[in-house]
């Protein structure tokens, strides 16, 4: 393995331990020398190896190697003839000595390696432990900001920094604001904020050196090469969740940031937690905003509902009394009754608009039949055509036309379109109403012979209160078309206007159609209790 994990950490071995190990070696040598005639080379080798290996295991590589060297010399001096000299009588004994030395060194080396690996594993485990507990802490803390504060102080203490700050970054404007800070950058706070703003804008890591210059990460190597840079004072990196920059982490040390590979790894992991923490802060804020909005919506709906109720009750009285007086021959009372009707229409349309805005415009979507709707539309539009004829076109051999829509709401939309057509077409010109199938759509088409709608107004006429340019004062609330479009969209459909061939305009309201081939067949099969319920 490489040395990347660092050598096994030991308390420096004391002088007395060294002395003790050498003493042990001499005791063993002395003991064996006393019974030398009864020993052969194998006994000596084993005894010395034992001492060297235990020494390596307990005292580390330097001690092991030292013991091996001394044992080698003692072996030669005291146990291989001629005794007392380093020369050897039998050249074969060089083999014994060589094997002993090699075995000692190898075993010391192997033990060292095994210990180093075990140590690294322990370190990693401790690191994972720390991160896991930090993660759990982060998720468990009641308030999102507190979790971030915990992360920031862990980053600061584990990397021995002067200061660590997390900023929240607005995803749209990229403006940053500090959420939590640990330590104090003193005079450099403004410089740090500037660096963080740069990072938020670019979405990349940046360094600021002690001389005040900054460098933006160009190739994502800036952290790996940090030891090759001049002295770094501060570092800021984007906090990203799903590739979006949600915040900035900034760390600073006035004496210079020196980050080892292991520390960068810790910083990476902690940055990830910080990013999650920032995202959580953001989501909590968003949820609070949404809750407030929903409350406001509810309040608005309640107000509208009670306003409409409270308006309609007096309107009923006004209308009825005006009616009674008008019957007595006073024309002014008839005007009062008309105006009461107008006011009522206005209240109803305001309610419609509010329902559309709150997404409750089409709450009763069911299979409905087109001819049924046309019939109801004819009936409802009857009083609102200002003397114009309403032509309804459905061929009697037309197949069943079924769509999926809210009957009452769609009827309202179609009647609004008829009313609009009647308003804009010349007196005596009929308004035409038709239904037909177009692929997966069921179309309700209202055509008039009015002035048509100029290209640039085709979208704007669907805005609330919009009035067409140069149009006569046609009365009404100016809400009919926008309500109709709102209803169509709530049903998953569309409402568009186009110019009609030969002059005038064509409003097409489309809602999702339903295939009716099967129903049609079961109907044509004749009598019986068809269609058989499933």
């Amino acid at each position, binding site marked *: 393995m490489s040395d990347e994990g660092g050598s096994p950490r030991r308390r420096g071995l004391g002088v007395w331990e060294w002395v003790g190990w050498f003493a042990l070696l001499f005791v063993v040598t002395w003991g064996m020398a006393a019974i030398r005639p009864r020993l052969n080379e194998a006994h000596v080798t084993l005894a010395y190896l034992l001492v060297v290996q235990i020494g390596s295991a307990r005292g580390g590589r330097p001690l092991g190697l030292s013991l091996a060297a001394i044992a080698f010399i003692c072996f030669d001096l005291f146990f291989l003839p001629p005794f007392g000299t380093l020369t050897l009588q039998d050249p074969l004994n060089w083999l014994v000595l060589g094997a002993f030395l090699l075995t000692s060194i190898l075993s010391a080396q192997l033990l060292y390696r095994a210990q180093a690996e075990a140590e690294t594993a322990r370190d990693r485990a401790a690191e994972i432990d720390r991160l896991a507990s930090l993660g759990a802490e982060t998720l468990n803390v009641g308030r999102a900001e507190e979790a971030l504060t915990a992360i920031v102080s862990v980053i600061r203490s584990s990397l021995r920094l002067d200061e660590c700050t997390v900023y929240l970054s607005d995803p749209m404007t990229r403006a940053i604001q500090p959420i939590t800070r640990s330590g104090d950058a003193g005079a450099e706070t403004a410089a740090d904020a500037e660096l963080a703003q740069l990072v938020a804008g670019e979405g990349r890591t940046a360094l600021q050196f002690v001389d005040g210059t900054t460098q933006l990460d160009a190739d994502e190597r800036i952290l790996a090469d940090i030891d090759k840079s001049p002295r770094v004072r501060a570092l800021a990196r984007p906090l990203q969740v799903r590739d979006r920059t949600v915040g900035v982490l900034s760390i600073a040390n006035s004496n210079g940031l020196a980050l080892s590979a292991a520390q960068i790894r810790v910083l990476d992991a902690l940055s990830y937690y910080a990013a999650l923490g920032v995202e959580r802060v953001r989501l909590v804020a968003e949820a609070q905003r949404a809750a407030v909005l929903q409350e406001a919506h509810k309040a608005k709906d309640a107000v509208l509902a009670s306003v409409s109720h409270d308006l309609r*009750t007096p309107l*009923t009285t*006004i209308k*009825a009394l005006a009616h009674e007086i008008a019957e007595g021959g006073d024309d002014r009372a008839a005007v009062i009754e008309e105006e*009461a*009707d107008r006011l009522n229409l206005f209240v109803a349309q305001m309610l419609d608009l509010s329902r559309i805005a709150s997404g409750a415009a089409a709450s009763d979507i069911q*299979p409905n039949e087109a001819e049924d709707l046309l019939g109801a539309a004819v009936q409802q539009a009857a009083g609102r055509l200002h003397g114009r004829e309403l032509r309804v076109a459905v061929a009697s051999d037309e197949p069943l036309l079924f769509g999926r829509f809210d009957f009452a709401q769609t*009827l309202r939309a179609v009647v609004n379109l008829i009313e609009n057509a009647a308003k804009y077409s010349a007196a005596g010109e009929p308004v035409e109403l038709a239904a037909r199938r177009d692929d997966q759509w069921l179309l309700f088409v209202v055509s008039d012979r009015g002035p048509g709608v100029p290209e640039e107004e085709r979208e704007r006429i669907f805005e609330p209160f919009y009035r067409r340019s140069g149009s006569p004062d046609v009365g009404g609330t100016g809400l009919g078309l926008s309500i109709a479009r709102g209803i169509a969209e709530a049903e998953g459909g569309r409402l568009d206007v186009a110019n009609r061939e030969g002059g005038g305009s064509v409003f097409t309201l489309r809602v999702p159609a339903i295939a009716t081939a099967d129903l049609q067949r079961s109907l044509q099969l004749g*009598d019986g209790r068809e269609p058989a319920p499933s």
Partner: protein
Amino acid sequence: MPGDVVLVVDDEPQIRRVVRNALTSENARVIEAANGRDAIDLAAAERPALIVLDLGLPDIQGLDVCREIRSWSSAPIIVLSARHSDQEKVALLDAGADDYITKPFSPGELQARVRAQLRRSRLAPAAGATQVITIGELVIDPVKPSLKKGDGAVHLTKTEWELLRTLLKHAGRTLTHQQLFRAVWGNSSGDMQQYLRVHIRSVRRKIEADPVRPRLIVTEPGVGYRFENEP
């Protein structure tokens, strides 16, 4: 209507006044209640020929008053409502109300509805399903059953007759989709909406002069259908 007793239930004195004026001008005798409790007591004591009931009562939900009275009285109930919700209308009809008027209404509209309900209630129950009915060139004999349009006989399927008979039996009264489906198809499951609409369309094509301008089977949007006995 002359001499008929009509009970008007509303907590707003102004509305009671409007309704009273509209009905006394038709020579009805009007009695009034300002809350649900009094309404139920008066309805039991006076046995009115018709009840006009406001939904927003201070003590008891209008819907419950309606259900309570309907449990022992067959007098037509016309509901006054300030809301426009179709679900509310359906719930009312299911609770036994015969008709409803949305505020603000005109006195003429109210008078017409009251007249229609009184006339309907005077007919023998279920008479519509047993009598031969002639409307214009249309002759309907629901017992035989046969349908003549001008000189030609028109064939109706079994289901179509069932549907037409149900509507005739309750002529002048709006039947909810649910009520109609139960009467024709019983408790069977299935796509109620779709079956009902398919058959309404085919019956209309056979009896209406112009099926896209129906005058006999009228649609109550979002609520149900009604057979007009005096189109």
